[in-house]
Protein backbone atom coordinates (compact mmCIF):
# COMPACT_ATOMS: atom_id res chain seq x y z
CA UNK A 1 0.00 0.00 0.00
CA UNK A 2 2.82 2.34 0.96
CA UNK A 3 4.58 1.85 -2.37
CA UNK A 4 1.31 2.33 -4.21
CA UNK A 5 0.78 5.69 -2.52
CA UNK A 6 4.33 6.72 -3.36
CA UNK A 7 3.82 5.74 -6.96
CA UNK A 8 0.53 7.61 -7.05
CA UNK A 9 2.18 10.74 -5.64
CA UNK A 10 4.82 10.56 -8.37
CA UNK A 11 2.70 9.52 -11.35
CA UNK A 12 -0.87 10.34 -10.29
CA UNK A 13 -1.06 13.47 -12.41
CA UNK A 14 0.28 11.56 -15.42
CA UNK A 15 -2.48 8.98 -15.03
CA UNK A 16 -5.11 11.71 -14.67
CA UNK A 17 -3.91 13.52 -17.79
CA UNK A 18 -3.72 10.24 -19.65
CA UNK A 19 -7.42 9.73 -18.93
CA UNK A 20 -8.30 13.25 -20.08
CA UNK A 21 -6.23 12.77 -23.23
CA UNK A 22 -7.94 9.42 -23.77
CA UNK A 23 -11.28 11.25 -23.97
CA UNK A 24 -9.83 13.64 -26.56
CA UNK A 25 -8.32 10.77 -28.51
CA UNK A 26 -11.64 8.88 -28.48
CA UNK A 27 -13.33 12.00 -29.81
CA UNK A 28 -10.80 12.22 -32.66
CA UNK A 29 -11.14 8.49 -33.26
CA UNK A 30 -14.93 8.86 -33.60
CA UNK A 31 -14.57 10.89 -36.80
CA UNK A 32 -11.35 9.24 -37.96
CA UNK A 33 -13.05 5.85 -37.94
CA UNK A 34 -15.41 7.11 -40.63
CA UNK A 35 -12.51 8.39 -42.72
CA UNK A 36 -12.56 12.06 -41.73
CA UNK A 37 -9.33 13.66 -40.52
CA UNK A 38 -10.50 16.56 -38.39
CA UNK A 39 -8.93 18.64 -35.65
CA UNK A 40 -12.24 20.05 -34.50
CA UNK A 41 -12.18 18.06 -31.25
CA UNK A 42 -10.30 21.08 -29.87
CA UNK A 43 -13.28 23.28 -30.71
CA UNK A 44 -15.73 20.93 -29.02
CA UNK A 45 -13.41 20.68 -26.02
CA UNK A 46 -13.23 24.48 -25.78
CA UNK A 47 -17.03 24.75 -25.90
CA UNK A 48 -17.45 22.04 -23.29
CA UNK A 49 -14.64 23.35 -21.11
CA UNK A 50 -15.75 26.97 -20.97
CA UNK A 51 -19.39 25.97 -20.58
CA UNK A 52 -18.64 23.66 -17.67
CA UNK A 53 -16.33 26.22 -16.06
CA UNK A 54 -18.92 28.97 -16.28
CA UNK A 55 -21.79 26.78 -15.10
CA UNK A 56 -19.91 25.54 -12.06
CA UNK A 57 -18.25 28.90 -11.37
CA UNK A 58 -21.15 31.30 -11.83
CA UNK A 59 -24.17 29.11 -11.10
CA UNK A 60 -22.55 26.66 -8.71
CA UNK A 61 -23.65 23.61 -10.70
CA UNK A 62 -22.27 20.35 -9.29
CA UNK A 63 -19.94 18.13 -11.27
CA UNK A 64 -22.54 15.56 -12.34
CA UNK A 65 -24.66 18.31 -13.90
CA UNK A 66 -21.81 20.22 -15.50
CA UNK A 67 -20.55 17.20 -17.47
CA UNK A 68 -23.84 16.52 -19.32
CA UNK A 69 -24.11 20.24 -20.09
CA UNK A 70 -20.60 20.18 -21.55
CA UNK A 71 -21.49 17.11 -23.58
CA UNK A 72 -24.59 18.82 -24.95
CA UNK A 73 -22.61 21.96 -25.76
CA UNK A 74 -19.94 19.95 -27.56
CA UNK A 75 -22.57 17.99 -29.46
CA UNK A 76 -24.31 21.16 -30.57
CA UNK A 77 -21.03 22.68 -31.75
CA UNK A 78 -20.32 19.45 -33.61
CA UNK A 79 -23.69 19.62 -35.41
CA UNK A 80 -22.87 23.14 -36.62
CA UNK A 81 -19.34 22.18 -37.70
CA UNK A 82 -20.51 19.01 -39.45
CA UNK A 83 -23.19 20.94 -41.31
CA UNK A 84 -20.64 23.47 -42.57
CA UNK A 85 -17.68 21.16 -43.23
CA UNK A 86 -19.00 17.81 -44.38
CA UNK A 87 -19.40 18.98 -47.97
CA UNK A 88 -15.63 19.61 -48.18
CA UNK A 89 -13.28 17.19 -49.87
CA UNK A 90 -11.05 15.33 -47.38
CA UNK A 91 -7.91 17.43 -47.94
CA UNK A 92 -9.85 20.65 -47.46
CA UNK A 93 -11.56 19.18 -44.44
CA UNK A 94 -8.21 18.70 -42.70
CA UNK A 95 -7.09 22.25 -43.52
CA UNK A 96 -10.42 23.83 -42.65
CA UNK A 97 -10.66 22.06 -39.31
CA UNK A 98 -7.15 23.19 -38.41
CA UNK A 99 -8.10 26.73 -39.39
CA UNK A 100 -11.15 26.47 -37.14
CA UNK A 101 -8.87 25.67 -34.21
CA UNK A 102 -6.98 28.93 -34.81
CA UNK A 103 -10.25 30.82 -35.13
CA UNK A 104 -11.54 29.32 -31.87
CA UNK A 105 -8.60 30.70 -29.93
CA UNK A 106 -9.03 34.19 -31.36
CA UNK A 107 -12.78 34.08 -30.70
CA UNK A 108 -12.22 32.95 -27.13
CA UNK A 109 -9.65 35.72 -26.64
CA UNK A 110 -12.11 38.34 -27.83
CA UNK A 111 -15.12 37.17 -25.81
CA UNK A 112 -13.95 37.89 -22.25
CA UNK A 113 -17.53 37.82 -20.91
CA UNK A 114 -17.78 34.12 -21.76
CA UNK A 115 -14.22 32.90 -21.49
CA UNK A 116 -12.36 35.35 -19.26
CA UNK A 117 -10.35 36.48 -22.31
CA UNK A 118 -6.58 36.72 -21.84
CA UNK A 119 -6.84 36.28 -18.06
CA UNK A 120 -8.62 32.95 -18.32
CA UNK A 121 -11.02 31.40 -15.84
CA UNK A 122 -10.47 29.83 -12.46
CA UNK A 123 -12.50 26.67 -12.05
CA UNK A 124 -13.66 26.12 -8.46
CA UNK A 125 -14.59 22.45 -8.82
CA UNK A 126 -12.14 19.55 -9.02
CA UNK A 127 -12.70 16.14 -10.53
CA UNK A 128 -11.34 13.14 -8.63
CA UNK A 129 -9.31 10.57 -10.59
CA UNK A 130 -11.88 7.91 -9.70
CA UNK A 131 -14.75 9.97 -11.16
CA UNK A 132 -12.67 10.55 -14.27
CA UNK A 133 -12.04 6.82 -14.53
CA UNK A 134 -15.79 6.12 -14.32
CA UNK A 135 -16.47 8.71 -17.03
CA UNK A 136 -13.81 7.21 -19.29
CA UNK A 137 -15.15 3.70 -18.63
CA UNK A 138 -18.68 4.80 -19.60
CA UNK A 139 -17.40 6.34 -22.84
CA UNK A 140 -15.37 3.22 -23.57
CA UNK A 141 -18.42 0.98 -23.12
CA UNK A 142 -20.32 3.16 -25.60
CA UNK A 143 -17.48 2.92 -28.12
CA UNK A 144 -17.22 -0.84 -27.59
CA UNK A 145 -20.95 -1.31 -28.22
CA UNK A 146 -20.81 1.00 -31.24
CA UNK A 147 -17.85 -0.91 -32.67
CA UNK A 148 -19.90 -4.14 -32.68
CA UNK A 149 -23.10 -2.50 -33.90
CA UNK A 150 -24.44 -1.88 -37.39
CA UNK A 151 -23.12 1.66 -37.11
CA UNK A 152 -19.60 0.40 -36.46
CA UNK A 153 -19.75 -1.85 -39.48
CA UNK A 154 -21.14 0.96 -41.63
CA UNK A 155 -18.50 3.42 -40.45
CA UNK A 156 -15.72 0.97 -41.35
CA UNK A 157 -17.27 0.55 -44.78
CA UNK A 158 -17.45 4.32 -45.29
CA UNK A 159 -13.84 4.68 -44.19
CA UNK A 160 -12.54 2.00 -46.56
CA UNK A 161 -14.49 3.20 -49.58
CA UNK A 162 -17.27 5.75 -49.40
CA UNK A 163 -18.41 5.08 -52.98
CA UNK A 164 -18.79 1.35 -52.40
CA UNK A 165 -20.56 2.00 -49.10
CA UNK A 166 -23.12 4.25 -50.74
CA UNK A 167 -23.87 1.67 -53.46
CA UNK A 168 -24.71 -0.71 -50.61
CA UNK A 169 -27.28 1.69 -49.21
CA UNK A 170 -25.17 3.36 -46.56
CA UNK A 171 -25.23 7.14 -46.69
CA UNK A 172 -21.66 8.35 -45.99
CA UNK A 173 -22.99 11.80 -45.12
CA UNK A 174 -25.31 10.39 -42.46
CA UNK A 175 -22.66 8.14 -40.93
CA UNK A 176 -20.11 10.94 -40.84
CA UNK A 177 -22.65 13.37 -39.39
CA UNK A 178 -23.42 10.95 -36.56
CA UNK A 179 -19.69 10.41 -36.06
CA UNK A 180 -19.26 14.16 -35.68
CA UNK A 181 -22.03 14.28 -33.07
CA UNK A 182 -20.35 11.50 -31.08
CA UNK A 183 -17.02 13.29 -31.43
CA UNK A 184 -18.64 16.51 -30.20
CA UNK A 185 -20.19 14.90 -27.13
CA UNK A 186 -17.00 13.08 -26.12
CA UNK A 187 -14.88 16.14 -26.98
CA UNK A 188 -17.12 18.34 -24.80
CA UNK A 189 -16.76 15.87 -21.94
CA UNK A 190 -12.99 15.86 -22.43
CA UNK A 191 -12.88 19.65 -22.42
CA UNK A 192 -14.84 19.77 -19.17
CA UNK A 193 -12.63 17.06 -17.69
CA UNK A 194 -9.54 19.09 -18.60
CA UNK A 195 -11.06 22.23 -17.05
CA UNK A 196 -11.87 20.37 -13.82
CA UNK A 197 -8.40 18.82 -13.75
CA UNK A 198 -6.34 21.94 -14.43
CA UNK A 199 -8.76 24.15 -12.44
CA UNK A 200 -7.63 27.02 -14.63
CA UNK A 201 -8.40 27.43 -18.31
CA UNK A 202 -7.66 30.13 -20.85
CA UNK A 203 -7.94 30.36 -24.64
CA UNK A 204 -4.38 29.01 -24.84
CA UNK A 205 -5.51 25.80 -23.14
CA UNK A 206 -7.51 24.69 -26.16
CA UNK A 207 -5.05 25.30 -28.96
CA UNK A 208 -2.69 23.64 -31.42
CA UNK A 209 -0.78 21.74 -28.74
CA UNK A 210 -3.88 19.80 -27.76
CA UNK A 211 -4.87 19.26 -31.40
CA UNK A 212 -1.56 17.58 -32.18
CA UNK A 213 -1.59 15.64 -28.89
CA UNK A 214 -4.96 14.11 -29.64
CA UNK A 215 -4.25 13.20 -33.24
CA UNK A 216 -0.85 11.77 -32.31
CA UNK A 217 -2.38 9.74 -29.47
CA UNK A 218 -5.05 8.33 -31.75
CA UNK A 219 -2.79 7.34 -34.61
CA UNK A 220 -0.04 6.13 -32.27
CA UNK A 221 -2.46 3.82 -30.47
CA UNK A 222 -4.17 2.73 -33.67
CA UNK A 223 -7.17 4.27 -35.36
CA UNK A 224 -8.86 0.99 -36.31
CA UNK A 225 -10.10 -0.09 -32.89
CA UNK A 226 -11.59 1.75 -29.89
CA UNK A 227 -8.81 0.46 -27.62
CA UNK A 228 -6.20 2.23 -29.78
CA UNK A 229 -6.90 5.83 -28.72
CA UNK A 230 -6.92 4.89 -25.02
CA UNK A 231 -3.61 3.04 -25.22
CA UNK A 232 -2.17 5.75 -27.46
CA UNK A 233 -3.14 8.52 -25.04
CA UNK A 234 -1.57 6.60 -22.15
CA UNK A 235 1.69 6.09 -24.09
CA UNK A 236 1.83 9.63 -25.43
CA UNK A 237 1.14 11.17 -22.02
CA UNK A 238 3.63 8.92 -20.25
CA UNK A 239 6.37 9.57 -22.84
CA UNK A 240 7.57 12.96 -21.51
CA UNK A 241 7.62 11.66 -17.91
CA UNK A 242 9.55 8.56 -18.92
CA UNK A 243 11.96 10.50 -21.09
CA UNK A 244 12.56 12.99 -18.31
CA UNK A 245 13.60 10.11 -16.08
CA UNK A 246 15.95 8.65 -18.70
CA UNK A 247 17.39 11.63 -20.60
CA UNK A 248 16.41 14.80 -18.70
CA UNK A 249 18.30 17.27 -20.93
CA UNK A 250 16.74 16.29 -24.22
CA UNK A 251 13.37 14.93 -23.16
CA UNK A 252 11.49 16.71 -25.97
CA UNK A 253 13.87 15.43 -28.62
CA UNK A 254 13.63 11.90 -27.21
CA UNK A 255 9.82 12.10 -27.20
CA UNK A 256 9.83 13.12 -30.85
CA UNK A 257 12.24 10.34 -31.79
CA UNK A 258 10.14 7.68 -30.05
CA UNK A 259 7.00 8.94 -31.79
CA UNK A 260 8.86 8.88 -35.12
CA UNK A 261 10.16 5.34 -34.61
CA UNK A 262 6.76 3.94 -33.60
CA UNK A 263 5.11 5.51 -36.64
CA UNK A 264 7.75 4.29 -39.07
CA UNK A 265 7.75 0.71 -37.81
CA UNK A 266 4.08 0.43 -36.81
CA UNK A 267 2.30 2.86 -39.13
CA UNK A 268 -1.11 1.38 -38.30
CA UNK A 269 -0.59 1.98 -34.59
CA UNK A 270 0.00 -0.16 -31.53
CA UNK A 271 -3.48 -1.72 -31.56
CA UNK A 272 -4.11 -3.11 -35.01
CA UNK A 273 -7.01 -5.55 -35.45
CA UNK A 274 -5.86 -6.39 -38.98
CA UNK A 275 -2.51 -7.59 -37.64
CA UNK A 276 -4.37 -9.75 -35.10
CA UNK A 277 -6.53 -11.13 -37.87
CA UNK A 278 -3.53 -11.88 -40.08
CA UNK A 279 -1.74 -13.60 -37.21
CA UNK A 280 -4.83 -15.66 -36.40
CA UNK A 281 -5.23 -16.63 -40.05
CA UNK A 282 -1.57 -17.59 -40.31
CA UNK A 283 -1.84 -19.74 -37.20
CA UNK A 284 -5.02 -21.40 -38.49
CA UNK A 285 -3.35 -22.11 -41.82
CA UNK A 286 -0.35 -23.63 -40.10
CA UNK A 287 -2.59 -25.83 -37.98
CA UNK A 288 -4.64 -27.08 -40.90
CA UNK A 289 -1.52 -27.75 -42.91
CA UNK A 290 0.00 -29.65 -40.02
CA UNK A 291 -3.22 -31.64 -39.68
CA UNK A 292 -3.29 -32.40 -43.39
CA UNK A 293 0.33 -33.44 -43.34
CA UNK A 294 -0.42 -35.72 -40.41
CA UNK A 295 -3.40 -37.24 -42.28
CA UNK A 296 -1.30 -37.78 -45.37
CA UNK A 297 1.37 -39.49 -43.28
CA UNK A 298 -1.29 -41.65 -41.68
CA UNK A 299 -2.60 -42.71 -45.13
CA UNK A 300 0.87 -43.46 -46.35
Amino acid sequence: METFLDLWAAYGSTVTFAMVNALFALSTYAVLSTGVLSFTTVVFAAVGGFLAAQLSGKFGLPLWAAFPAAALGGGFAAAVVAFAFLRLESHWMALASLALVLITRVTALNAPALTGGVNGLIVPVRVEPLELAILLALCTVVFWRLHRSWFGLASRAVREDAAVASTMGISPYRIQFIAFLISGVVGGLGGAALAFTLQFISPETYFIGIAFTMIASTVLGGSFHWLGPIIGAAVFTALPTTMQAIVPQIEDVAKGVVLLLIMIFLPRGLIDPRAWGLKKAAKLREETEAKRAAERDAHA
Partner: protein
Amino acid sequence: MQLFVEQLINGWALGSLYALFGIGFGLVFSTLGILNAAHGTYASWAAIAGYYAVERFGVPFPVAIAAGVIGGGLLAVVVDQIGFQPLRAKKTGMLGALITSIAFWIILDSLAGFATGQQSLAFPAASYPNQMVVMGPLRVPQMQIITIVALLVCTIGIHLLIQKTRIGAAMRAVGWNEVAAALGGVNARMVILLTAFLAGATSGLAGVLGGISTSNVSFTLGEGLMLKGFAAVVVGGYDDVRGTAIAGICLGIIEVFVAQYISTSFRDGFTYMLLLAFLIARPRGLFGSASFVRA
Protein backbone atom coordinates in the same frame (compact mmCIF):
# COMPACT_ATOMS: atom_id res chain seq x y z
CA MET B 1 -1.75 59.82 -47.50
CA GLN B 2 1.95 59.33 -46.99
CA LEU B 3 1.31 57.24 -43.89
CA PHE B 4 -1.28 55.25 -45.80
CA VAL B 5 1.12 54.36 -48.60
CA GLU B 6 3.91 53.58 -46.18
CA GLN B 7 1.67 51.27 -44.21
CA LEU B 8 0.48 49.70 -47.45
CA ILE B 9 4.09 48.85 -48.31
CA ASN B 10 4.68 47.65 -44.75
CA GLY B 11 1.72 45.31 -45.02
CA TRP B 12 2.73 44.17 -48.48
CA ALA B 13 6.21 43.24 -47.25
CA LEU B 14 4.80 41.43 -44.22
CA GLY B 15 2.27 39.62 -46.39
CA SER B 16 5.05 38.66 -48.81
CA LEU B 17 6.72 36.76 -45.98
CA TYR B 18 3.48 34.90 -45.20
CA ALA B 19 2.99 34.10 -48.87
CA LEU B 20 6.58 32.94 -49.42
CA PHE B 21 6.17 30.59 -46.49
CA GLY B 22 2.72 29.45 -47.57
CA ILE B 23 3.87 28.58 -51.11
CA GLY B 24 6.09 25.81 -49.79
CA PHE B 25 3.43 24.51 -47.44
CA GLY B 26 0.83 24.42 -50.23
CA LEU B 27 3.29 22.81 -52.66
CA VAL B 28 3.95 19.91 -50.30
CA PHE B 29 0.27 19.55 -49.49
CA SER B 30 -0.92 19.47 -53.10
CA THR B 31 1.95 17.47 -54.63
CA LEU B 32 2.89 15.08 -51.85
CA GLY B 33 -0.40 15.06 -49.93
CA ILE B 34 1.33 15.80 -46.65
CA LEU B 35 -0.02 18.16 -44.04
CA ASN B 36 3.40 19.12 -42.77
CA ALA B 37 3.39 20.32 -39.17
CA ALA B 38 7.18 20.62 -39.28
CA HIS B 39 7.13 23.20 -42.08
CA GLY B 40 7.55 26.13 -39.67
CA THR B 41 10.76 24.68 -38.28
CA TYR B 42 12.39 24.87 -41.75
CA ALA B 43 11.99 28.64 -41.58
CA SER B 44 13.42 28.81 -38.05
CA TRP B 45 16.39 26.65 -38.99
CA ALA B 46 17.06 28.60 -42.18
CA ALA B 47 17.15 31.80 -40.16
CA ILE B 48 19.49 30.15 -37.66
CA ALA B 49 21.74 28.92 -40.48
CA GLY B 50 21.84 32.41 -41.99
CA TYR B 51 22.55 33.95 -38.60
CA TYR B 52 25.46 31.66 -37.80
CA ALA B 53 26.88 32.10 -41.31
CA VAL B 54 27.03 35.83 -40.62
CA GLU B 55 28.08 35.57 -37.01
CA ARG B 56 30.81 32.94 -37.32
CA PHE B 57 32.13 33.46 -40.84
CA GLY B 58 31.18 37.07 -41.54
CA VAL B 59 29.74 36.19 -44.94
CA PRO B 60 28.11 38.94 -47.04
CA PHE B 61 24.33 39.29 -47.20
CA PRO B 62 23.61 37.27 -50.39
CA VAL B 63 25.66 34.35 -49.06
CA ALA B 64 23.73 34.42 -45.77
CA ILE B 65 20.47 34.28 -47.72
CA ALA B 66 21.81 31.41 -49.82
CA ALA B 67 22.89 29.57 -46.67
CA GLY B 68 19.36 29.86 -45.31
CA VAL B 69 17.68 28.84 -48.56
CA ILE B 70 19.91 25.83 -49.17
CA GLY B 71 19.82 24.90 -45.49
CA GLY B 72 16.02 24.98 -45.46
CA GLY B 73 15.85 22.93 -48.65
CA LEU B 74 18.27 20.28 -47.42
CA LEU B 75 16.49 20.04 -44.07
CA ALA B 76 13.21 19.47 -45.88
CA VAL B 77 14.78 16.71 -47.99
CA VAL B 78 16.23 15.02 -44.90
CA VAL B 79 12.89 15.19 -43.06
CA ASP B 80 11.13 13.81 -46.12
CA GLN B 81 13.53 10.91 -46.56
CA ILE B 82 13.56 9.91 -42.88
CA GLY B 83 10.02 10.73 -41.88
CA PHE B 84 7.85 10.39 -44.96
CA GLN B 85 9.60 8.04 -47.39
CA PRO B 86 9.26 4.87 -45.23
CA LEU B 87 5.50 5.49 -44.98
CA ARG B 88 4.92 5.91 -48.73
CA ALA B 89 5.41 2.22 -49.38
CA LYS B 90 3.03 1.35 -46.55
CA LYS B 91 0.15 3.43 -47.91
CA THR B 92 -0.81 5.20 -44.71
CA GLY B 93 -2.16 8.20 -46.57
CA MET B 94 -2.17 11.60 -44.98
CA LEU B 95 -2.35 10.28 -41.43
CA GLY B 96 1.02 8.58 -40.95
CA ALA B 97 2.99 11.45 -42.46
CA LEU B 98 1.08 13.92 -40.31
CA ILE B 99 2.21 12.14 -37.17
CA THR B 100 5.85 11.84 -38.26
CA SER B 101 5.79 15.52 -39.19
CA ILE B 102 4.51 16.29 -35.67
CA ALA B 103 7.40 14.21 -34.34
CA PHE B 104 9.87 16.24 -36.43
CA TRP B 105 8.21 19.45 -35.32
CA ILE B 106 8.81 18.50 -31.67
CA ILE B 107 12.41 17.44 -32.37
CA LEU B 108 13.45 20.37 -34.57
CA ASP B 109 11.74 23.00 -32.43
CA SER B 110 13.43 21.75 -29.33
CA LEU B 111 16.83 21.58 -31.09
CA ALA B 112 16.31 25.11 -32.43
CA GLY B 113 15.80 26.20 -28.84
CA PHE B 114 19.23 24.75 -27.98
CA ALA B 115 20.84 26.31 -31.06
CA THR B 116 19.78 29.83 -30.08
CA GLY B 117 20.30 29.30 -26.34
CA GLN B 118 16.51 29.60 -25.70
CA GLN B 119 16.53 33.25 -26.65
CA SER B 120 15.78 35.42 -29.64
CA LEU B 121 18.82 36.49 -31.66
CA ALA B 122 19.08 39.40 -34.08
CA PHE B 123 21.25 39.80 -37.17
CA PRO B 124 23.95 42.44 -36.64
CA ALA B 125 22.82 45.70 -38.23
CA ALA B 126 25.83 45.91 -40.54
CA SER B 127 25.23 42.47 -42.04
CA TYR B 128 22.24 43.36 -44.22
CA PRO B 129 21.08 46.34 -46.34
CA ASN B 130 19.47 48.53 -43.68
CA GLN B 131 19.26 51.82 -45.56
CA MET B 132 16.06 53.62 -46.53
CA VAL B 133 15.22 54.04 -50.19
CA VAL B 134 13.79 57.51 -50.82
CA MET B 135 11.07 57.63 -53.46
CA GLY B 136 9.66 61.16 -53.55
CA PRO B 137 8.05 61.71 -50.15
CA LEU B 138 8.28 58.03 -49.27
CA ARG B 139 11.05 56.31 -47.36
CA VAL B 140 11.01 52.55 -47.69
CA PRO B 141 13.48 50.18 -45.96
CA GLN B 142 15.60 48.20 -48.41
CA MET B 143 14.68 44.92 -46.73
CA GLN B 144 10.99 45.47 -47.53
CA ILE B 145 11.78 45.97 -51.20
CA ILE B 146 13.94 42.85 -51.21
CA THR B 147 11.14 40.85 -49.59
CA ILE B 148 8.50 42.06 -52.02
CA VAL B 149 10.71 41.34 -55.03
CA ALA B 150 11.63 37.92 -53.62
CA LEU B 151 7.97 36.93 -53.46
CA LEU B 152 7.28 38.18 -56.99
CA VAL B 153 10.24 36.27 -58.41
CA CYS B 154 9.39 33.07 -56.51
CA THR B 155 5.70 33.15 -57.37
CA ILE B 156 6.23 33.75 -61.07
CA GLY B 157 9.10 31.27 -61.20
CA ILE B 158 7.27 28.46 -59.42
CA HIS B 159 4.03 29.11 -61.27
CA LEU B 160 5.81 28.86 -64.61
CA LEU B 161 7.71 25.80 -63.41
CA ILE B 162 4.51 23.99 -62.43
CA GLN B 163 2.32 25.06 -65.36
CA LYS B 164 4.72 25.27 -68.31
CA THR B 165 7.56 22.80 -67.90
CA ARG B 166 7.86 19.03 -68.10
CA ILE B 167 9.04 18.90 -64.50
CA GLY B 168 5.96 20.82 -63.46
CA ALA B 169 3.74 18.45 -65.38
CA ALA B 170 5.45 15.58 -63.58
CA MET B 171 4.84 17.28 -60.24
CA ARG B 172 1.15 17.74 -61.00
CA ALA B 173 0.94 14.13 -62.14
CA VAL B 174 2.49 12.86 -58.92
CA GLY B 175 0.10 15.10 -56.97
CA TRP B 176 -2.82 13.52 -58.75
CA ASN B 177 -1.74 9.91 -58.48
CA GLU B 178 1.77 8.75 -57.73
CA VAL B 179 1.37 5.22 -59.12
CA ALA B 180 -0.25 6.37 -62.35
CA ALA B 181 2.47 8.97 -62.80
CA ALA B 182 5.14 6.32 -62.32
CA LEU B 183 3.42 4.12 -64.91
CA GLY B 184 3.46 7.10 -67.27
CA GLY B 185 7.24 7.24 -67.05
CA VAL B 186 7.61 9.89 -64.34
CA ASN B 187 10.46 9.37 -61.92
CA ALA B 188 8.31 9.89 -58.83
CA ARG B 189 11.25 9.68 -56.43
CA MET B 190 13.01 12.60 -58.14
CA VAL B 191 9.83 14.67 -58.23
CA ILE B 192 9.29 14.08 -54.52
CA LEU B 193 12.85 15.11 -53.67
CA LEU B 194 12.60 18.19 -55.88
CA THR B 195 9.27 19.24 -54.38
CA ALA B 196 10.54 18.79 -50.85
CA PHE B 197 13.65 20.82 -51.62
CA LEU B 198 11.69 23.59 -53.33
CA ALA B 199 9.25 23.81 -50.43
CA GLY B 200 12.02 23.87 -47.85
CA ALA B 201 13.96 26.46 -49.84
CA THR B 202 11.03 28.91 -50.19
CA SER B 203 10.12 28.66 -46.53
CA GLY B 204 13.82 28.98 -45.75
CA LEU B 205 13.90 32.20 -47.76
CA ALA B 206 10.88 33.45 -45.81
CA GLY B 207 12.66 32.45 -42.62
CA VAL B 208 15.90 34.33 -43.32
CA LEU B 209 14.14 37.45 -44.63
CA GLY B 210 11.69 37.36 -41.72
CA GLY B 211 14.46 36.76 -39.21
CA ILE B 212 16.33 39.80 -40.51
CA SER B 213 13.42 42.21 -40.78
CA THR B 214 11.75 41.28 -37.48
CA SER B 215 15.09 40.89 -35.61
CA ASN B 216 13.84 37.59 -34.27
CA VAL B 217 15.87 34.45 -34.92
CA SER B 218 14.41 31.70 -32.74
CA PHE B 219 11.95 28.83 -32.89
CA THR B 220 9.03 31.27 -32.44
CA LEU B 221 9.81 32.71 -35.89
CA GLY B 222 8.65 29.56 -37.65
CA GLU B 223 5.55 29.22 -35.50
CA GLY B 224 4.42 32.76 -36.29
CA LEU B 225 4.98 32.25 -40.01
CA MET B 226 3.23 28.89 -39.86
CA LEU B 227 -0.03 30.28 -38.46
CA LYS B 228 -0.26 33.12 -40.96
CA GLY B 229 1.19 31.21 -43.91
CA PHE B 230 -1.38 28.52 -43.27
CA ALA B 231 -4.16 31.12 -43.39
CA ALA B 232 -2.77 32.36 -46.71
CA VAL B 233 -2.84 28.82 -48.11
CA VAL B 234 -6.46 28.24 -47.09
CA VAL B 235 -7.68 31.59 -48.39
CA GLY B 236 -5.69 31.36 -51.62
CA GLY B 237 -6.38 27.75 -52.50
CA TYR B 238 -3.64 25.26 -51.81
CA ASP B 239 -3.11 23.96 -55.33
CA ASP B 240 -2.23 27.30 -56.88
CA VAL B 241 0.76 29.45 -55.94
CA ARG B 242 -0.83 32.61 -57.36
CA GLY B 243 -3.70 32.31 -54.91
CA THR B 244 -1.34 31.84 -51.98
CA ALA B 245 0.72 34.87 -53.04
CA ILE B 246 -2.28 37.17 -53.43
CA ALA B 247 -3.94 35.93 -50.26
CA GLY B 248 -0.70 36.30 -48.29
CA ILE B 249 -0.20 39.89 -49.45
CA CYS B 250 -3.83 40.74 -48.67
CA LEU B 251 -3.57 39.20 -45.20
CA GLY B 252 -0.41 41.22 -44.48
CA ILE B 253 -1.97 44.49 -45.65
CA ILE B 254 -5.18 43.85 -43.71
CA GLU B 255 -3.20 43.03 -40.60
CA VAL B 256 -1.17 46.25 -40.75
CA PHE B 257 -4.18 48.41 -41.59
CA VAL B 258 -6.32 46.94 -38.82
CA ALA B 259 -3.52 47.58 -36.35
CA GLN B 260 -3.06 51.13 -37.67
CA TYR B 261 -6.63 52.30 -38.11
CA ILE B 262 -8.82 50.14 -35.86
CA SER B 263 -7.03 48.51 -32.95
CA THR B 264 -3.97 46.37 -32.42
CA SER B 265 -6.02 43.92 -30.38
CA PHE B 266 -8.08 42.98 -33.47
CA ARG B 267 -4.95 42.34 -35.54
CA ASP B 268 -5.21 38.55 -35.52
CA GLY B 269 -8.98 38.57 -35.16
CA PHE B 270 -9.50 40.07 -38.61
CA THR B 271 -7.20 37.59 -40.29
CA TYR B 272 -9.10 34.67 -38.86
CA MET B 273 -12.50 36.27 -39.51
CA LEU B 274 -11.49 36.42 -43.15
CA LEU B 275 -10.36 32.82 -42.94
CA LEU B 276 -13.72 31.78 -41.49
CA ALA B 277 -15.61 33.72 -44.14
CA PHE B 278 -13.65 31.93 -46.85
CA LEU B 279 -14.18 28.54 -45.25
CA ILE B 280 -17.92 29.02 -45.31
CA ALA B 281 -18.43 30.97 -48.53
CA ARG B 282 -15.66 29.66 -50.78
CA PRO B 283 -14.02 26.69 -49.13
CA ARG B 284 -11.71 25.89 -52.02
CA GLY B 285 -10.01 29.30 -51.85
CA LEU B 286 -9.41 32.03 -54.42
CA PHE B 287 -7.87 29.89 -57.14
CA GLY B 288 -8.59 26.38 -55.88
CA SER B 289 -9.62 23.99 -58.61
CA ALA B 290 -13.34 23.42 -58.84
CA SER B 291 -13.66 19.68 -58.47
CA PHE B 292 -10.52 18.38 -56.88
CA VAL B 293 -11.52 14.89 -55.86
CA ARG B 294 -9.17 12.02 -55.31
CA ALA B 295 -10.70 8.70 -56.20
